[in-house]
């Protein structure tokens, strides 16, 4: 029948449009700061040492470790924040972070903070910033994403490196939490000793900030 050939009136059971998950939940977003971060690493002595404050992602390890030959430290602060939000009686987050960040002074070339600071209270943010400043080598770079408006409850995000110009924003199973915007002046104060080398405002109202140690 002609109608069968044209498939009028019905769609195949295997039509991907019927079974595909909704699009848009895991966007791939170009990053302005990430290429600058990689360029900063390129100028550091080899092998570059990078700390990733996000959850471990296999393709990020392959990108940074295998392709760029960086030595990579995974310090998954998002999971630490998640643990504290689930069991707040376990003590102050700032104290946990203080005990956790033990890298030597001047030993790190790059820090991938992603959006960790949005989920930290002031004391914890200052603790993390203090250790970043301490552990960073001269010329080293820090990349962080900062929200511009408060969010009552935001999910955590896994930032997967797609290539050297874009990141895939993926679902994180953690409970998330409120996001608190930090004014630029507070970021500059918190990272005293570093300079804001680049700052970009994305359409999604996220600020991508690259800080460097002179």
């Amino acid at each position: 029948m002609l109608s069968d050939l044209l498939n009028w009136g019905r769609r195949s059971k295997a039509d991907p449009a019927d079974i595909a998950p909704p699009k848009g939940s895991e966007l791939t977003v170009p990053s302005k700061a990430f290429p600058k971060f990689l360029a900063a690493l390129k100028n550091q002595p080899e092998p570059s040492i990078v700390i990733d404050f996000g959850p471990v992602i296999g393709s990020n390890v392959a990108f940074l470790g295998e392709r760029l030959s960086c030595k990579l430290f995974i310090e998954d602060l998002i999971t630490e924040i998640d643990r504290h939000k689930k069991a707040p009686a376990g003590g102050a987050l700032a104290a946990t972070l203080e005990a956790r960040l033990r890298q030597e002074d001047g030993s790190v070339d790059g820090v991938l903070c992603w959006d960790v600071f949005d989920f930290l209270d002031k004391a914890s943010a200052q603790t993390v910033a203090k250790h970043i400043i301490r552990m960073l080598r001269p010329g080293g770079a820090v990349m962080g994403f900062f929200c511009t408006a408060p969010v009552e409850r935001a999910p955590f995000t896994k930032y997967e490196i797609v290539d050297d110009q874009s990141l895939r924003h993926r679902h994180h199973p953690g409970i998330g939490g409120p996001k608190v915007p930090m004014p630029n002046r507070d970021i500059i104060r918190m990272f005293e000793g570093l300079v804001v080398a680049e700052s970009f405002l994305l359409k999604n109202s996220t600020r991508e900030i690259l800080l460097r140690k002179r």
Partner: protein
Amino acid sequence: MNIGKSVVIKGELNGSEDLTIEGQVEGKIELRQNVLTIGANGKIKAQVFAKAVIILGEVTGNVTATEKVDIRDNGSVDGDIASPRVAIAEGAHFRGAIDMQRAGAKPGEKSDKGETKPAAAAVTPTTGNPATAGASR
């Protein structure tokens, strides 16, 4: 060879054949020419040296492999990894350092640092709209 769930070894474990551990080992494991598999029930507190290490259970300690370390879903490593290839599955736990420098590689050999070609892991098609508005200093 298999080390079963009920076996607990404290000390040094050396061998010249592939090994799967489902039990507990504390100390040091050396299988420099062979593949070591830590099964889903395996609990290791040891320094591990092998040709390749596949982890489905728990490892606390540094892992060195001359070929590959593969942490599978629900596998867990607390320690440093040194291996030219490292694969970490979704759902795996890892805390520590990863050094993928090839043994014997000379400084400056890693020539593709900063190139603009996409990484091997970057072949998944883009699913969203670009969100970058542009630079503002």
